[in-house]
């Protein structure tokens, strides 16, 4: 009986291993919390994506995905369709135009000033 369960688990693992979860970091042009929410939410619903997290310090969007269902090029393409640059790929201008004002170029240029005063 024990052996049977063990075999079952090994088989299950082997099965799971076939569809491998890979991770990728995509450098984006995201600049604020709003961008983070927009990008993460959209990519969450992309086919093959398991999890998404954007680091605003580095602007890198970390994605865990199933390599049987999608690939890095598709993911980068999707990022551009949301309105952001993805590594060397340029953002889609139409999608960019639809973004919230605070996610557009130059919206946070004054950010540094108050920060300095604060600390």
């Amino acid at each position, binding site marked *: 009986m024990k052996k049977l369960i063990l075999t079952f688990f090994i088989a299950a693992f082997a099965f799971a291993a076939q569809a491998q979860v890979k991770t990728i970091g995509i450098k984006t042009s995201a600049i*604020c919390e709003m961008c983070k929410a927009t990008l993460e*939410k959209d990519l969450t*619903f992309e086919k093959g994506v398991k999890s998404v997290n954007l680091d605003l310090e580095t602007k890198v969007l970390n994605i865990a995905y199933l390599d049987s269902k999608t690939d890095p090029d598709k993911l980068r393409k999707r990022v551009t369709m949301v309105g952001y640059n993805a590594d060397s790929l340029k953002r889609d201008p139409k999608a960019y135009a639809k973004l919230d*004002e*605070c996610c557009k170029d130059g919206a*946070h240029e004054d950010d540094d000033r*108050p*920060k300095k005063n*604060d600390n």
Partner: protein
Amino acid sequence: MKSTILLIACLFAPALIFAQNSIKGKVQSASNEPLIGASIKLQGKDQGVITNLDGYFELGNVLKTDRLVVNYLGYEPDTLSPVFDEAMLITLQESGEAMEEVTIRGRSQSVVDEAPFLNILISENELQKAACCNLSESFETNASVDVSYADAVTGTKMIQMMGLDGRYVLISREGIPNIRGLNSRLGLTFVPGTWIQSIDVGKGAGTVINGYESMTGQINVDLFKPESMDTWYLNGYLNSFGRIEINANHQVPISEKWSSGVLFHASQMSSEIDGNDDGFMDLPKGRQLNFLNRYKYEGDRLMAQIGVNLFMSDNAGGQKGFGFNGDLSTSSMYGYEMDTRKAEVFGKLGMIYPDKPTQSWGFQYSLSYQDFNGGAGRRIYQGIEKTAYGNFIYQNVLGSSFHQYKTGASFLYDDFEETFDSNTPTGLDTAMYRTEKVPGLFFEYNFIPNERITVVAGARTDFHNLFGTYFTPRVHARWEFIPNWTLRGSVGKGYRTPNALMENSSVWISARELVFNAELKPEESWNTGVSVAGNVTIDDRPLSIVADYFYTDFTNQLVYDMDVSSELLVVNNLSNGSYANSFQIEASYPITERVDAKAAYKHYEMMMTTDGILQQIPLQSQDRFFMNIAYATKYEKWKADMTLNWNGPMRIPNTSESPVEFRQPSESPDFFMLNAQVSRGFRWGSIYLGGENILNFKQSNPIIDPENPFGSNFDASMTWGPIAGRVIYTGIRYKIK
């Protein structure tokens, strides 16, 4: 405005530096008028401040991670991040609905903290947890409203608050009384679930502004609004009983100031479900068409809205084989039929004054025609109700916003024509006509000395053409006695005119003779209540607790007495012979970031004098338990939800005179009901799969003597539990923004 706030939010959210500091600034209207007495509160904390006579405020110990919630009566509340270096200038926009209460809409379902009334908000998100089908099912994940089955034939679900029938609750649609009169029982099915944006459930008598009919509570339903709805929202639904539904909400943009919205519903259920093999359909076949279209104008000062609602529904039930156009008076089968038509024109008109931001007026109106054609067995009913309603509300402050008031006048015209033929030699044949004309005046004063205290004292006087003058005083108070803990108290009067035929439609489906021993008198009650709501932080997460106790005392009630004899239903006026105590405690807690749990225990004691004895109202549980667990992944890609209800034993009306084989036990067994739903989100919407009554609990033999429906022992009104068993459903929601 919105983008400025977003910009501020964007600026500060990334810089999560935990520096403590103080903020100062000014709150003003769009026309740069200072708002005096506006509240600025830190979200989820006890800290807060009110602006002074020049609209200025200062608040210490603010964290960068805090969120400021800014509130002012008659204005859209705003939530924003603090700014530390310079004075903040916060501009509030006048609220689009001049006559709506200002509430904070955040969490999916919660007690509205700032309200002086004990109000629970059910949001769209919460409503989607129970995907079927209309307003009567929308309270499934809410502990304050109970849902039960009217009888074993009509499939009607009834709601109760504080253990008392839903007819004692004022159910309004966007402030206009909507489910009342002849449709007080069936009307919940007139509002499709997918049309509803949110529901406010208020316990206790509530405000006097919307009339005198709220005896135990107020439920206000907000539909999707033309200016904020999606371009398209499509929903398809299918269940294992063969019910099919199509819903469509469509926004028609017209111009910057004009918008229009169309809401559509079509449903059909044509299969005959008889899970308990008694030869009777467990729920009737039905088809419904429902259409609502409204236009909204939003100018700088004037707001106007006009809409139309057209509704038709046909239901046919009873013995299997009875069809939609069956003839009740001659059919050899025992049938049930109810065909309903409704047409309504409704709207609002409101004015705000940019130079006097505290002042506004609004007018709400509704004109409707409803007719009901149906009956059960040989009994044939026809009812027509014509209603005209108007309510004018003026709101302003007395000196400062510490003293606010609303005053106005209303008018109700309500015309009833009902006929009832039992088509038997001894049975009741009656025709009832009445026309109510009720002008009324009201005044409500809000005293808000500080963040912690609100007192609302209101009164209205209505001049009823049939029943004389109604005086309706009501007082509500709220006191945040320690941080995060609020005590509320209320006392208020209520009245309503009963409609004995429609309200006893379940008894039509029995051999009981209807006996009217009463001249028509209004029902009259006092409702008193206290509640405590608050939260304690456990593991950085709030455990919210609400405990309430309400006492409803009827000075006059129209009693429907089934205890006199199992062959009769006696309608009687009862003075000071009935009351209800209700106690509820509810707790909710996010077990993890992704799992929310909620549980409630309710104890009711509802006493009424029937058959000369003061005893528990029949077919209602005294004790109930409710539990809900909800799970959602990030961005709600997956959602799962489970609700468990336990209903304690119920008293069953006295059947000791019946032949021995038809006698019922004096008490029903207790039972559990389990509902669950899973949904998967997509960019375009979601698909869902769920089940109701998953444990498949059914009342055994819900119909007494089903073999002889025209015999003298037949009774399908002794219903205490679900009739139909488990139902599995699935559906799809598709949105185009």
